[in-house]
């Protein structure tokens, strides 16, 4: 019988931890053993999460697969479905579909430097890129991470990133942190401790701190829509070619398979559905597809 791609598969919440006032970390495990075997996903892909009676929302994975049938999600309480997700207990049943989307071209980027630029919640999908690259460390040259936060309270994966800030070089990644609230005491003390890696300002300010070699660097961006233009500006100034700047976009991806039409962008010469053609696009895509960033 033909597969019904719109029918969610049952999964249960195995972990749910509060990360910030509005974000939770969730670990989800699919129930069906056969599906668990084949359920795999790449950095940058997303799944559709269903809550019975509430609805469905696209959430990107924030890690690589470590265990069969398990996926990690970082969910901000921002709408109806995500609010319901925040109120689920361990053991609660949800539905999932996917994974969907193209993901980041991890193989294409082999042999190059990686520069990850994340703002706010945008760090969630980039964390899976970072995990993948660190797991396959020998395949990449330098790995640099820029993470921009507003305040210390909004910092996601705090222990993990604090560890990277302090010990990152030993683990194979140069981690930089920027914070926007100049009066934030915890951020100020972080800066005092790691002045070479932490500074006050927007995430693009961190470009002052590094020397970038445009001929063998891929940039990977994820953050609030406003951030893309500024980061791209910096990268262009540093001569990184448009086809080596990757970004992952947010849109209303209701179906995940290019049918429902809500995530459409572009003009007559280039129409894209973010869920199916993306959500990962290059800056070159943005240059010839109007309305992308």
């Amino acid at each position: 019988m033909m597969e019904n791609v719109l029918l969610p598969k049952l999964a249960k919440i195995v972990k749910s931890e509060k990360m910030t006032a509005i974000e939770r970390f969730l670990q989800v495990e699919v129930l069906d053993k056969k599906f668990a075997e084949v359920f795999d996903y790449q950095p940058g892909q997303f799944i559709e999460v269903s809550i019975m009676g509430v609805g469905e929302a696209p959430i990107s994975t924030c890690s690589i697969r470590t265990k069969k049938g398990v996926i990690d999600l970082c969910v901000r309480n921002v709408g109806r479905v995500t609010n319901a997700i925040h109120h689920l207990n361990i053991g609660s049943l949800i539905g999932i579909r996917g994974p969907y989307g193209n993901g980041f071209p991890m193989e294409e980027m082999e042999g190059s430097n990686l520069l990850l630029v994340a703002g706010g919640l945008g760090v969630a999908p980039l964390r899976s890129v970072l995990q993948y690259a660190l797991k396959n460390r020998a395949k990449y040259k330098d790995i640099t991470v820029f993470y921009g936060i507003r305040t210390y309270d909004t910092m996601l994966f705090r222990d993990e990133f604090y560890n990277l800030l302090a010990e990152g070089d030993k683990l194979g990644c140069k981690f930089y942190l920027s914070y926007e609230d100049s009066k934030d005491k915890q951020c100020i003390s972080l800066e005092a401790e790691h002045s070479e890696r932490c500074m006050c300002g927007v995430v693009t300010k961190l470009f002052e701190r590094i020397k970038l070699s445009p001929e063998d660097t891929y940039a990977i961006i994820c953050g609030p829509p406003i951030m893309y233009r500024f980061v791209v500006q910096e990268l262009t100034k540093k001569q990184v070619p448009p086809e080596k700047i990757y970004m992952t976009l947010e849109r209303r991806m209701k179906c995940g398979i290019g049918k429902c039409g809500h995530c459409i962008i572009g003009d007559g010469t280039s129409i894209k559905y973010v869920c199916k053609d993306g959500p990962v696009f290059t800056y070159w895509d943005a240059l010839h597809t109007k309305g992308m960033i």
Partner: protein
Amino acid sequence: MKYVKLPKENLDAFVENLKTHGKVYGPVKIGEYYSFQEINNSKEMSLEYSRTMIPPKKFFLKLKERLFTFNEEKGEYKETLEEEKIVVFGIHPCDINALKLMDKIYIDETPDKYYKMRRENAVIVGYGCHPDEYCFCHSLGTNYAADGFDLFLHELKDGFFVRVGSDKGNAIVSEISELIKDVEGSDIEEFRAAERKREKEYTLELNIRGITDMLALAYESEVWKEYADKCFGCGSCNLVCPTCRCYDVVDNVNLNLKSGERLRRLDSCMLRKHGLVAGGLNFRPTRIERLRNRFNCKGSLREDTLNCVGCGRCTVYCPSQIDYVEVLKKVRGEL
């Protein structure tokens, strides 16, 4: 292609036979509009119809349908898809070509089970038409259906010139062998003459040469504001468009709050919510952006064809009389 002839007096017997293949729907006049409705005999149909208000997409991507039920206590999602055999009689070439565009999205890419099953359970009987002042299908090459049907009827003086487009169509023809005749040379000549005549009946032209670039170049044009000021943002154009297929999804909960159903229903890119994401950010916040998006979507290349078949519905049924062809002429700078 196999060709046969159906004498006029056998049309009703033909429709009788079609009823054995499923519920038969045909174009019926309701008030001043036409609609595909279930019919019992050929006399209920208005085969000389211009266009139905709602295109035949309604049979395949239902305006509203249940996708599945869910039950939290039982922990299940249950498919509730029911098969039904139907025959859609009298579809015009533009609408057949529109279904072919829909098939590309709903069958060729990640197949949609609901749509695909209904397409497979349907017999498509096409019917030749004459253009009115709103038809511009000939500009798009969709005024003729080369395939995408099981049977296609072209009217002759004393019967119908029938093109047999599929094995399903051929099976039907073999069942009614006593009702049909072989085509003769004079029938072929009559069919050819009618097609030559029809080509000359078109009055409306849309130049689609380079339209994709013209749309991209007009992205910041004042045209969009001019028409957005006229547009009510009602979404009628989406509803009546044979290639518009955006849908919205909603969960309905039963009173026990534990079980319910997920529905999908036709959506409209002209409505404010279309580009809205959780948290309140809207990627197409104004009517200008939404109108521009609709025209760019319709005017975009999907493989070798545009996403429009020139049926004229969006112009005919726009409550604000926005003329689709006129807008695209302005985009090009012709007006």
